[in-house]
């Protein structure tokens, strides 16, 4: 909804403003004031011409009308506390007591203004009503101008809301005065709520009215529009320059604290409730994410596995050939180690004999020798001194673990020995 036209219709003038609204932020674009003739038909024609001009030049998405208090009747009544929808229905019957015409002839809305005094569960309401006939005339003009009607509002309450926004005070206490073309609209404020509303013609003495009201509603005097300095000077007053049509449009967009809407039901666009759809969509998305996470993980692993298998099958043929070669190599290595072992042990006896012949002292001789392929050697023989033979054998690295296998016996200056040992390094 980018452009909205706010139109404040006063008794002698029409003030229109175009605003640009995006995501509840409002930007003023243009405003224009137009004097209205007193004759009803001429007045309607002038309004139609003005709206058609705006429609033609700016094509606003819709129009928000604001009417001063003179078009409304209002009263404070007490009702039991209930939901807003139920309250609206209940007021239909309750207001019959107060209004001269049948309730079908009125459009009404209300503002809760505080706790009731008749019973603990009662609520005080400020109820505003407007004749349908008057509204229909206004809406017909808008329709004829080709505009969509977004809202019909009470300009006084929307201006009061604007004052609340820019006053910078937490709670407004005192009196609010809005000057229209031919009257002063006065509201007694408590806790920022209008508890008392009155319309005073400009011919009446405003000062007296305000002094009387100030007794019940002490605080500041909040003034919008043209009010004489001689009147405001008597009170602790604050003046505000406010564009009423801008406030009307922005109040519609922002849904203000004092939100009154007098648009007949047939003009209210039924908003589609997207909440269940959003929740449903989010739930579906969550389930989808849940499935997708699992499926994606599975798919990625599966794909990686397939790629790996393809790679493996390519390498398998090459690798199996190499593995065969390796197996063959290992078998051959085993065979070679058997052959090497066999060859290495083949001449142990010869080498042992060779070493012994070098080591044996000249006065020693053998009568028996036995050698096997595990390197075990047994000697038997005679020596002048066996100890010398043993020392010589020990010195040689060719034999290890030398020991006597029988006691040494000596006869005729010779010793008979029997030794056993193991072949070491050659």
């Amino acid at each position, binding site marked *: 909804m980018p452009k909205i036209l706010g139109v404040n219709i006063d008794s002698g003038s029409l003030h229109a403003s175009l605003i640009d609204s995006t995501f509840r932020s409002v930007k003023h674009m243009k405003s224009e004031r137009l004097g209205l003739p007193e004759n009803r038909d001429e007045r309607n024609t002038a309004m139609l011409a003005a709206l058609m001009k705006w429609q033609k030049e700016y094509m606003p998405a819709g129009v928000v009308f604001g009417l001063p208090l003179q078009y409304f009747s209002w009263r404070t009544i007490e009702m039991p506390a209930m939901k807003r929808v139920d309250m609206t229905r209940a007021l239909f019957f309750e207001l019959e007591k107060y209004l001269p015409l049948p309730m079908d002839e009125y459009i009404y809305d209300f503002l809760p203004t505080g706790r009731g005094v008749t019973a603990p569960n009662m609520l005080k309401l400020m109820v505003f009503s407007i004749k349908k006939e008057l509204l229909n005339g206004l809406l017909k003009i808008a329709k004829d101008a080709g505009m969509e009607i977004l809202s019909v509002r009470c300009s006084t309450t929307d201006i009061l809301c604007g004052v609340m926004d820019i006053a910078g005070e937490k709670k407004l206490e005192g009196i609010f005065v809005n000057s229209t073309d031919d009257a002063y609209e006065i509201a007694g404020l408590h806790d920022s709520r209008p508890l008392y509303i009155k319309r005073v013609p400009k011919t009446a003495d405003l000062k007296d009215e305000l002094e009387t009201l100030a007794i019940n509603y002490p605080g500041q005097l909040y003034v919008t529009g043209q009010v004489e300095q001689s009147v405001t000077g008597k009170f602790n007053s604050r003046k505000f320059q406010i564009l009423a049509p801008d406030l009307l449009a922005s109040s519609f967009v922002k849904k203000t604290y004092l939100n009154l809407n007098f648009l007949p039901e047939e003009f209210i666009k039924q908003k589609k409730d997207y909440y269940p759809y959003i929740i449903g969509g989010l739930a579906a998305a969550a389930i989808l994410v849940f499935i997708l996470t699992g499926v994606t993980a599975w798919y990625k692993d599966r794909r990686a596995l397939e790629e790996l298998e393809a790679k*493996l099958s390519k390498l398998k043929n090459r*690798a199996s050939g190499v593995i065969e070669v390796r197996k063959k*190599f290992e078998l051959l290595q085993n065979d070679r180690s058997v052959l090497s072992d066999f*060859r290495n042990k083949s*001449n142990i006896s010869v080498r042992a004999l060779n070493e012994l012949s070098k080591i044996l002292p000249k006065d020693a001789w053998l009568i028996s020798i036995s050698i096997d392929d595990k390197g075990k050697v047994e000697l038997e023989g005679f020596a002048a001194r066996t100890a010398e033979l043993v020392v010589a054998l020990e010195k040689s690295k060719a034999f290890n673990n030398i020991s006597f296998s029988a006691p040494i016996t000596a006869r005729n200056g010779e010793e008979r020995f029997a030794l056993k040992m193991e072949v070491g390094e050659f």
Partner: protein
Amino acid sequence: MKRNRYIILVLFFVCSVYLFELYVLSPATENNRESLDKKYKTLQQYEYVISGSGTIEDELKVLIAGMKNIEKRLIAEKSDFLASARVQREISGLAGKAGLNIAVTRPLNAVKLNDYSAIPVYFEGNGNIKQVSEFLKSVEANPLILKIDKLSLNITNMQKPDELRFKIQISGLSRI
């Protein structure tokens, strides 16, 4: 009624999805990961094997060549019996050349060594130390690979110390 039906359908769908995830998708993913892990290791092994294939092939060629040279010196006879006869013939020939006198020849049972058979033969006889030395040298230098398993030399008669009694067990090697 219709709304309740939708709610039941949605709940059924959610439960089905959850159960599918829990009992089908998760185990399948788990299996995939296990397979991936196993196959990745296999792939690494294959790559390692293939990366070393050139070296192995070269080493194999060298090994085969070396083995061929050695295997020329093995007993070529096909049976253990014939191989034993060949060893006897060789040893008798060598002993004869050395001048040794062989009194006893006893073929022993073949011993299996991987793809080879060791064919042992036991000899007993006499001769002097020079003859024994000659014999042993000729055994060592023989074109056949011969291994002296056991060797025993004794002087049996102290009055004739040159006379030696020898007992020797010699094995030849044949390919099975």
